[in-house]
């Protein structure tokens, strides 16, 4: 690919050829998916079992894809690092799943869900993909109900829905606060059925460490058995990554402890472009950390902001307990700054405001990293019974974790990394720039733009896995060359090279014998990213981070200590490998953030603001997807732009003043 010099900014990258999504069919928006499916070539039922597909990850997207492909007759090799496919982190999603069913007759439609999602993504998502997502959404609910997912129901026996995340229509289906769990169990059970039938070979406790690319196509993976340490090659006709997001780069996030970016990062190094890595979502209502020891953060439903009032003391350094601070010395800052919306301002604004008051030294709780979410007024107005009915389980969860009773003492909350909109660049067929490598769910970048709407993550994961991937993957397989030329084995030089890379890295980690634990580097990296590449960024901070990260990486490879051997269960080794990849990805995130000199979605670029200080999106310059190419170790990455066209939803500016 040709390249031109980068703009005068110090950012070290080159600009490559623009990208065009060649897989989007022409024609009216609403007919494109139909058309794509019709034009897709089919694999005859008898030929399907001769095709092997590797699926990495068993969350909503991975389990749904594995089960569906196996039902259709393909041979599936499925991988997860957890001890059971049922434990993937989709299980922790609380809120719900959107679907354009319009059961409430409240004016919802495919078109409205499409519209809301594009707008919610702050005009940084691809229209064709989002429209398809909205189209498929209704089928997901049918599928899940048939599987026995116990959605909430009305007394009449029909499904209940609620309005979620500020949506004007009631289109969110839910199963108490455990929607992700129930949807995942449905997909896991469908997958289990195929495992018992022998069509899916499940490899639990097996972690993908590299991608095998032969003659430009993805042909397999290198994976480590986490029990006996064996590193093996698995070859196939196509590889599907359903490995989730990379929020754990920040160390503290609402992700599971073991969620990681290794699979997508290794795929990136083998040629898959990484899109919009700086787009991460921050959730305003998490339980603050209680000290250095804290391993992860726990999310609480945003609905708490419906009745709670957010405040901090007026005076910095005020350490009095909350009930001793009189009304006149409290700053209800959201109500003061955004009188029209008050405590219900969007996620990013609430998060940023909380960080600002804490940076002013007015934060509360351990380390001053928290703000009060006070229910005293609501308790007085509505009574304890009403509050208990609305938030009882959340209050219990809060009390279990903090030991404080929120009926008596105001809750403390703080924003935390929750989801990553960025991911591997995929075309309309969910195929990355490496032919035969597909990415589904949070692992791809496709549908949420710069900001994800509440209850849309579950929808996208299942849409990709159940309905979008299977037909387009079939098309890819149907077009493959046949015969001896297609067959490869483990002696292929590309396989050996990937295998060598993996074992070499592993050896380097194990033999280093340094004086710092891998986790200590992770904590340091996380703090750095949170400060410099979190919800508010500026060029100076990002440049500092870009200076610091390579040094930290260097230090990691010199000083990390990984005990034990590679031939047994070795959780330190697993962790160190993931952190090594985080240290590379973090740099690309900061570079992407630096180059995107606009405020958009949940990302506030300090230099890009309106006269009244609000986020200013710059459509003329940045209405594109930034897809980064790995150009080799130590070489500046190459930026490929995919220009976005908004033919159906006209870009507008948000206003919350």
């Amino acid at each position, binding site marked *: 690919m040709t390249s031109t010099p980068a703009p005068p900014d110090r950012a070290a990258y080159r600009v490559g050829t623009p990208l065009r999504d060649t897989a989007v069919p022409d024609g009216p928006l609403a007919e494109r998916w139909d058309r794509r499916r019709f034009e897709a070539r089919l694999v005859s039922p008898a030929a399907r079992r001769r095709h092997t597909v590797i699926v990495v990850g068993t969350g909503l997207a991975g389990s749904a894809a594995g089960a569906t492909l196996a039902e259709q007759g393909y041979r599936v090799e499925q991988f997860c690092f957890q001890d059971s496919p049922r434990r993937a982190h989709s299980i922790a999603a609380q809120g719900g799943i959107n679907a354009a069913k319009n059961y409430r007759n409240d004016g919802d439609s495919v078109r409205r869900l499409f519209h809301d999602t594009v707008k919610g993504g702050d005009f940084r998502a691809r229209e064709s993909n989002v429209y398809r997502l909205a189209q498929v959404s209704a089928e997901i609910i049918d*599928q899940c109900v048939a599987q*026995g997912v116990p959605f909430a129901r009305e007394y009449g026996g029909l499904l209940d829905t609620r309005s979620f995340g500020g949506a004007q229509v009631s289109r969110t289906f839910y199963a108490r606060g455990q929607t992700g769990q*129930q949807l995942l169990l449905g997909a896991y059970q469908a997958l289990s059925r195929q495992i018992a039938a022998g069509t899916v070979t499940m490899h639990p406790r097996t972690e993908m460490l590299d991608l095998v690319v032969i003659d430009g196509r993805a042909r397999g993976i290198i994976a480590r058995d986490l029990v006996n340490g064996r590193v093996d090659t698995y070859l196939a006709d196509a590889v599907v990554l359903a490995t989730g997001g990379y929020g754990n780069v920040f160390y503290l996030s609402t992700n599971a402890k073991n969620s990681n970016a290794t699979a997508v990062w290794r795929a990136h190094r083998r040629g898959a472009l990484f899109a919009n890595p700086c787009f991460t979502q921050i959730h305003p209502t998490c339980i603050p950390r209680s000290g250095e020891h804290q391993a992860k953060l726990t999310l609480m439903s945003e609905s708490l902001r419906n009745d709670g009032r957010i405040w901090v003391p007026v005076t910095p350094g005020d350490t009095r307990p909350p009930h001793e601070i009189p009304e006149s010395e409290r700053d209800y800052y959201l109500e003061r700054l955004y009188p029209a919306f008050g405590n219900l301002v969007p996620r990013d604004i609430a998060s940023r405001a909380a960080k600002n008051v804490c940076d002013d030294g007015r934060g509360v709780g351990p380390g001053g990293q928290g703000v009060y979410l006070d229910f005293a007024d609501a308790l007085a107005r509505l009574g304890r019974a009403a509050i208990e009915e609305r938030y009882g389980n959340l209050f219990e969860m809060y009390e279990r974790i*903090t030991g404080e009773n929120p009926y008596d003492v105001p809750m403390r909350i703080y924003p935390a990394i929750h989801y990553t909109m960025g991911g591997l660049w995929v075309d309309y067929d969910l195929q990355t720039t490496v032919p035969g490598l597909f990415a589904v769910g949070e692992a791809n970048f496709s549908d949420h733009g710069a900001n994800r709407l509440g209850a849309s993550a579950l929808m996208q994961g299942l849409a990709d896995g159940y309905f979008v991937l299977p037909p387009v993957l079939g098309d890819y397989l149907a077009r493959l060359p046949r015969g001896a030329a297609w067959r490869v084995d483990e002696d292929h030089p590309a396989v050996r090279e990937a295998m060598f890379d993996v074992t070499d890295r592993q050896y380097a980690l194990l033999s280093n014998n340094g004086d710092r634990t891998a986790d200590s580097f992770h904590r340091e990296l996380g703090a750095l990213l949170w400060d410099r590449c979190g919800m508010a960024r500026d060029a100076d901070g990002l440049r500092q981070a870009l200076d610091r990260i390579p040094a930290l990486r260097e230090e990691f490879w010199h000083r990390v200590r990984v005990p034990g051997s590679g031939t047994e269960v070795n959780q330190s080794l697993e962790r160190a490998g993931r952190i090594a990849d985080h240290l590379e990805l973090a740099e690309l995130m900061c570079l992407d953030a630096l180059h995107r000199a606009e405020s958009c979605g949940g990302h506030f670029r300090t230099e890009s603001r309106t006269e009244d200080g609000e986020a200013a999106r710059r459509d003329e310059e940045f209405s594109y997807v930034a897809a980064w190419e790995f150009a080799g170790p130590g070489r500046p990455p190459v930026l490929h732009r995919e220009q976005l066209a908004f033919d159906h939803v006209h870009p507008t500016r948000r206003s919350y003043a």
Partner: protein
Amino acid sequence: MRLTLRVWRQAGPDAPGRMARYEVTDVSPDMSFLEVLDTLNEELTLRGEEPVAFDHDCREGICGACGVVVNGQAHGPERTTACQLHMRHFADGDTIDVEPWRAAAFPVVKDLMVDRSALDRIVASGGYVTAPTGSAPEAHAMPVPKEDAERAFENAACIGCGACVAACPNGSAMLFTAAKAEHLGALPQGRVEGDRRVLAMVETMDDEGFGGCTNTGACATACPKGIPLPSIAAMNRGFLAAARRAR
């Protein structure tokens, strides 16, 4: 706080194991039990010793990965998972015994880590509704009484952690199996293949080496998700009816 941990150490499935003694200082009452193990592991790593292996992931009580027996109780003294057990429930100077789940069907992999794949095989033998993707009727085609949906949910809340097996004096997986049978059995979609399901799941449960139920209720007491004990009775009823119909 200062604590003494006595932790089961076992290098591998066939290696002999023993309880090892560790002192942990600077424990904050706000730490979770697993964060204490994290802290211990950081110290062990820097001292050049092998850290304690234990399963964990979401750390918010929903994935079911974690699970250790704390002072003889599965997930410890509170009715929650080990990751949500906080040290404020212990006193300064306490000695705490930490052991892996003990059951023939859950062989120890390393230290506190066990192999729970037997539970996956119980589900794979019948714990699903046969509904291939795309075959589903419109969701509102079949109304489900709210009570049935609630009962299904109550049982579907199982996180598959295995605490029921660990707590049962017989190492029985009846509560786990019953939760799945009752989740799907409560719904019209799942009732169609109810007989096959319950027979297959119970047989698989026995084949995997889990013990039988003696109705002690220890499972339901230990269950972090409150799966109700009567689910076992309901599954027994379903099993006997299905066995009667099998000829």
